[in-house]
């Protein structure tokens, strides 16, 4: 198997460069040939074997991407049809079906409504309460993973198809629903690329199935 894969990073707003470098690093470590391309619209979506929706402000990413409703449908259909995607922090919120804020209630923002979870935004509090904490994530190995939570959300309800990958003090902070991986924290800042490698594994099998 010597195929090359292409992974897109949604580059509307947020820590795009950190995810580009995390995916590149993961490909190097796995000895996989591939390209990482930042995308700002859906014109190159058919080239992709996977997508990362980075951290940032979920309201901004949603507002700008949905200025053109057709973009939303293209992206939704692609992910519904199996395109692997990793959403970190804002990416998790953007993928989810429902989002709310303790203080403000339903945040009435644009969401992709693909990941069957309810998300509480800024669930740990404002930036003053942001933190690092070691996490146990059996699905990616025994070693602890450094979770960097920046005004991070948590998942308060999950649907039947959603597998919980990690909890922090009973709160759900990482999940997988088939081709969708999502975290409350920022694996791109952890200097540990196991989540990005897990995405690449999904991308490899997606690429296989595409060519069949």
């Amino acid at each position, binding site marked *: 198997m010597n195929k090359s894969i292409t992974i897109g990073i949604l580059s509307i707003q947020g820590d795009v460069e950190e995810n580009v470098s995390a995916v590149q690093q993961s490909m190097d470590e796995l000895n996989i040939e591939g390209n990482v391309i930042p995308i700002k619209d859906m014109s190159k979506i058919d080239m992709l074997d996977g997508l990362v929706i980075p951290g940032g402000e979920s309201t901004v990413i949603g507002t700008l991407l949905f200025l053109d409703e057709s973009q939303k449908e293209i992206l939704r259909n692609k992910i519904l049809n199996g395109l692997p995607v990793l959403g970190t922090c804002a990416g998790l919120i953007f993928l989810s079906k429902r989002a709310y804020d303790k203080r*403000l209630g339903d*945040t009435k*923002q644009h969401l992709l409504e693909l990941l069957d979870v309810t998300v509480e935004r800024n669930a740990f509090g404002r*930036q*003053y309460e942001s933190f690092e904490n*070691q996490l146990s994530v059996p699905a990616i190995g025994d070693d*602890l993973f450094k979770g960097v939570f*920046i005004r991070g959300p948590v998942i308060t309800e999950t649907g039947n198809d959603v597998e919980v990958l990690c909890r922090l003090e009973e709160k759900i902070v990482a999940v997988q629903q088939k081709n969708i991986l999502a975290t409350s924290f920022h694996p791109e800042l952890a200097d540990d690329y196991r989540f990005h490698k897990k995405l690449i594994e999904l991308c490899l099998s997606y690429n296989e199935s595409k060519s069949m």
Partner: protein
Amino acid sequence: MTISLIPSDRKLKDESISPEDQNKRIKGSILVKRGFAHMQKHGVIMDVTNVEQAQIAEDSGAVAVMVLDKLPFDVRKAGGVARTAGVKIIQDIMDAVSIPIMAKCRIGHISEAQMLETCGVDMIDESEVLTPADEVNHVWKWDFTTPFVNGAKNLGEALRRVEEGSSMIRTKGEPGTGNVAEAVNHIKILNREVRSVRSAYIDNDNQELIRLSREFKVSLELVNEVGRLGRIPVVNFAAGGITTPSDASFLMRLGCDGVFVGSGIFKSEDPALRARAIVLATTFYDDSKVLLEAQKMVDEKNSLLGLDTKNLDLRMQERGPQI
């Protein structure tokens, strides 16, 4: 790791946090503070003075709002002493929008900064827009859990602020003038100086690197980090005089990571459209078609008329401690 951790965390060194202590939440670490700034990248942070403006900013796609008592243009007009915003306004805005909220404290004013941290703002701007409270020292920002942003006119100034614990840098420009020329000047000076550090670093010219560190009045460690990265070790935004979508795009093209807009939006006659247009121009700064569309959304007749930066009564960029 794509967030630089140089210079190392001055605060954590004194606290004994062992990495083995798995259940301890580490708050206010350099990674958490700089990480917050990294999440603002490619975004627009808008100056606001009330709840209504904050909601317009959020709806138009601002990545955060900066709460002030008066917009920089009005600070110039009012004269007198400019201080941090009222607590009630900050709290009302916190109850109204979900995006991060920043506020300004006077340069060196540790108690205003402490008050803003306790109040819960997400980032503190130690800003020359307000009247400096200490003409000799800036705030020692490592003591704070809340991250800081500081202004800089050149690389030396940027690195001195980073060495004091700042998590984000912005150009100073000349706020409230509607004229982007000073911000352009500052980012170009900084870029030129970064290039000279980078070339000395690539050539392994240690004598030149230490000369530069003496010139900039910062540690050799920090100058070496700039050489290794080819940029400053924290996020670098544009600020001061940005008025139109093209202004925002111009500064992004000069290598800024994002944009602060002060008087440019809410001192114009078309704030809601202009806010959205500047957001679009910042995200799609390198797409000439989107930029044209964004520029079409604003009417030049509605722009803040502005001030000539050569004949200002008050040059904000020059006030405060010189080192």
